[in-house]
């Protein structure tokens, strides 16, 4: 069901179809699910084929950093969900604060990945390296998938962070408020997707030792 908005304080009348806007966002999320889903299928088949190598290669991964990142993203999902509660209760400053905390947690995630990847690079473990080339084929597959999937996920974390920053600025300016918060809602949905992907990445990559 859609409603027409006529806001007196803007130059033109705004027509915001919230239901359609939200459904459009969900349709986009479905495409993201299949983007990562496709990679998960590759992982599944490769793992079925190179079980031992995957198990061995996964030992190189730091499960502690992986678990920490899982917790970080779960908490950030809560804070962004809470920011939506806040905006709907017209608690503007709380909403801004909660989005800010979400962004801080996103940065913590990125810093963790910096150390994690950094350690790998120190060991000359990256796609195409001489060390990598000499590994058994199954292990090359594992690391290729590891870097591709976590790298693509990290890209989504950055994009999500940019999106939420825009949302935060619009809450601050009042463009997002109790009556109009579709962008806020959609931004939060994107962030939850980022969390969901990691919920699956973590056990499949880090916990198969």
């Amino acid at each position, binding site marked *: 069901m859609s409603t027409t908005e006529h806001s007196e304080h803007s130059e033109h009348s705004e027509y915001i179809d919230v239901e359609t806007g939200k459904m459009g966002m969900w349709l986009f999320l479905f495409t993201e699910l299949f983007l990562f889903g496709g990679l998960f299928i590759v992982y599944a088949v490769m793992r079925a084929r190179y079980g031992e190598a995957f198990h061995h290669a996964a030992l190189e991964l730091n499960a502690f950093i992986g678990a920490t990142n899982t917790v970080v993203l779960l908490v950030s999902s809560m804070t962004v969900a809470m920011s939506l509660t806040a905006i*709907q209760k017209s608690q503007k400053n709380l909403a801004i604060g909660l989005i800010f905390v979400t962004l801080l947690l996103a940065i913590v995630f990125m810093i963790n990945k910096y150390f994690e990847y950094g350690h790998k690079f120190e060991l000359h473990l990256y796609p195409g390296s001489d060390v990598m080339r000499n590994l058994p084929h199954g292990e090359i597959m594992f690391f290729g998938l590891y870097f591709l999937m976590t790298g693509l996920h990290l890209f989504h974390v950055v994009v999500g962070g940019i999106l939420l920053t825009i949302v935060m600025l619009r809450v601050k300016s009042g463009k997002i408020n109790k009556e109009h918060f579709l962008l806020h809602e959609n931004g939060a949905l994107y962030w939850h997707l980022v969390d969901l992907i990691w919920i699956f990445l973590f056990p499949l990559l880090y*916990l198969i030792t």
Partner: protein
Amino acid sequence: MEDHHDNHVTSYAQNFKVLFVLLLLTISTIFVVKLDLGPLTVAMALFLASVKTTIVLTYFMHLKGEKLILRLMVGGVFLLFAIIVIITFIDYYFRII
């Protein structure tokens, strides 16, 4: 007034409770994997991840308060993905080379 969604707004307390459950499930996943139940380990880990996903979808992503059509679409997409996985593995396991 926009019909943004259902009548009620998720409370802060509810958000905390959801996080608590998610963290519990995360810890459980780590413990289950440490137990090492052989081939069942992966299945358990994936099952727990699916439970967490359902909780995030239902509460954080607010599917609980959304229209049925949206819930059907989300369910349908996951079903479609499951079918693709199954078909892929049917293909893989029946390959001769």
